[in-house]
C-alpha cells in the first residue's frame, strides 16, 4: 500500500470517482485470480471482480488507512465469490454429486475447445472435467476454504478473517473438502 493508493482513496472519498480507476487497474488481475480459483468459471470470475469493485467503492468510507487496500478488496472479492458459489449451489440443488448421473459427461460437453491437438485436448478436457466434477461435491464454504488454503496458500487464520469465521471452522471445512475430493477422485478412477 503506497502513498499513491492512499491519495487515490482520499481523492475518491472527496468525490473524484475517476481516482478509483488506478485502484481498479492495479488490483483487477489479482481479484480475477482468486475469483476464478473459487468459482472455477471465467464468466463468474469476471462477475465477481465487477461486484467486488463496486462493493469496494461503496464501502470505501469504512476503509481504514492502516490496512492495505489490496488486502481489503481481496477480502471483499473472496466474499463475493463465496456468495456466488453459494447461490450457484442453491440453483443447482438437483445435482447430486454422490451419483453417476451424467454430470461428468455434461461437464465434458460444456468445456470449450481450446484449439490444440486432438489427443492432448481430449486428455486435458477429461482431467479438467474430473477436477470440476470433484469440486462440485463441495459446499461453498468447503470450496472457498480449500482453494484459499491449498491453492492460494493462505493460513487458516487469514482465511477465517476473510470469511468472518473462526480458524477452527476453516480447518474443519478444509479437511472435509479434502476427504470429499479424495473420495470423489477415487470413485472416478474406479469408473474409468
Amino acid at each position, binding site marked *: 500500500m503506497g502513498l499513491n493508493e492512499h491519495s487515490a482513496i482520499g481523492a475518491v472519498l472527496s*468525490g473524484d470517482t475517476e481516482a478509483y480507476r488506478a485502484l*481498479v487497474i492495479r488490483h483487477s488481475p489479482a481479484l480475477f485470480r482468486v475469483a476464478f480459483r473459487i468459482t472455477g468459471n471465467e464468466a463468474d470470475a469476471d462477475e465477481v471482480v465487477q461486484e467486488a469493485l463496486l462493493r469496494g467503492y461503496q464501502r470505501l468510507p469504512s476503509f481504514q488507512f492502516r490496512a492495505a487496500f489490496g488486502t481489503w478488496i481481496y477480502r471483499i472479492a473472496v466474499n463475493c465469490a463465496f456468495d456466488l458459489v453459494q447461490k450457484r449451489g442453491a440453483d443447482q440443488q438437483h445435482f447430486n454429486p454422490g451419483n453417476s448421473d451424467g454430470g461428468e459427461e455434461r461437464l465434458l460437453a460444456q468445456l470449450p475447445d481450446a484449439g490444440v491437438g486432438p489427443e492432448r485436448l481430449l486428455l486435458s478436457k477429461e482431467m479438467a472435467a474430473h477436477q470440476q466434477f470433484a469440486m462440485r461435491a463441495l459446499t461453498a464454504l468447503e470450496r472457498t476454504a480449500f482453494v484459499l488454503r491449498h491453492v492460494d496458500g493462505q493460513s487458516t487464520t487469514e482465511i477465517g478473517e476473510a470469511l468472518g469465521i473462526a480458524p477452527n471452522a476453516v480447518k474443519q471445512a478444509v479437511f472435509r473438502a479434502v476427504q470429499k475430493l479424495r473420495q470423489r477422485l477415487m470413485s472416478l478412477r474406479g469408473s474409468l
Partner: protein
Amino acid sequence: MNHLTEEQLIDYQYDEGTERVEIEQHLRECAECSALAQKMAHDLSEIEAAGLNTPMPERDSAYGERMWQSVRSSLTPHRVTSRAFSFGWKWKLGLALAGAAAVLTVVAFYSGRLWEQKRAGDIAAINAHASQQNVILFVISDHLDRSQRLLAELNDPDVAAKDPALQENARELLTENRLYRQSASHSAAFRDVRQATIVQDTSLKSILDKLEPVLVELANQPDGLDSKEILRVRREMNTGSLLFEIHVLRGKVSNEQTSESAAQKSGNGLI
C-alpha cells in the same frame, strides 16, 4: 490414554498450532492416532497429486481497464459529508455534543481538583484521580456495553433484521463513538484511563477505531438492513472478533474500577 482430537490432527497436518512436539510424542505411542494421522496425510497427498489447481485463464494487460469501463458508469461520487450528519441528525448530534461537553466538563473539574489536591497531599490526589477515572470509565463502559449488545445482535442476522431499532441504534452509537474517539485522542484524562486499561494489544482507542467502520456500514445502508446485508457486514468486518475484544476490554475496565475503589478504600483507611 486420551486420543488426539480431529482438530489437533488437522493442526499437525497443516503444521499449525502450538502443540507439535506433544502431538508427535503421542503419535509415537498411540497406534490408533498414528493410523488416523497417516490417513489424513494420505488424503492430502492424493489431492495434491491430483493437481486440482485448474489452469488459470489468461487475462491481458487491458483487463483492468475493461473492468474500470464496466463499473465506471455505476459509480456515484462520494459526498464529503457523511449521510449520518445530514439534516435529520443535527438534533441528535447536538445532544451527543452536549453529552460529550458535560463529560469533558466533569473531567476538567476533576482535573482541576486533582491539581489542587496534589499540592495538598498524595492520598487526596489518589482519591481525586480515582474519582476522575471512575467518571470516564462509567461513560465509556456504557458505550461499550451498548456497542457489545449491538454486535451480539448481528450474530443472528435473521433476528437482527427484524429489529426496527437496529439501524437507529447504530447511528446513535456512531455519533457517540466519533466523539469518544476524538476525546480519547486529545484528552490527557482519557489517556490516563487508556494507560490504566491497556492490556497488550487491546486498547480503548483501538476498539473505538475498529468499531467506527462497522457502525458506518450499519448506519448508512440506504435501503435498511436485511439479514443478507447484516451477514455480509458481520463476515467482512469480522464483528465476532471485535465483540470479543470489547468483551475483554470491558472485563479489564471492570477490574480497573474494582482495583481503583479498593485502592481508594485502602488509602482512606491509612488516613
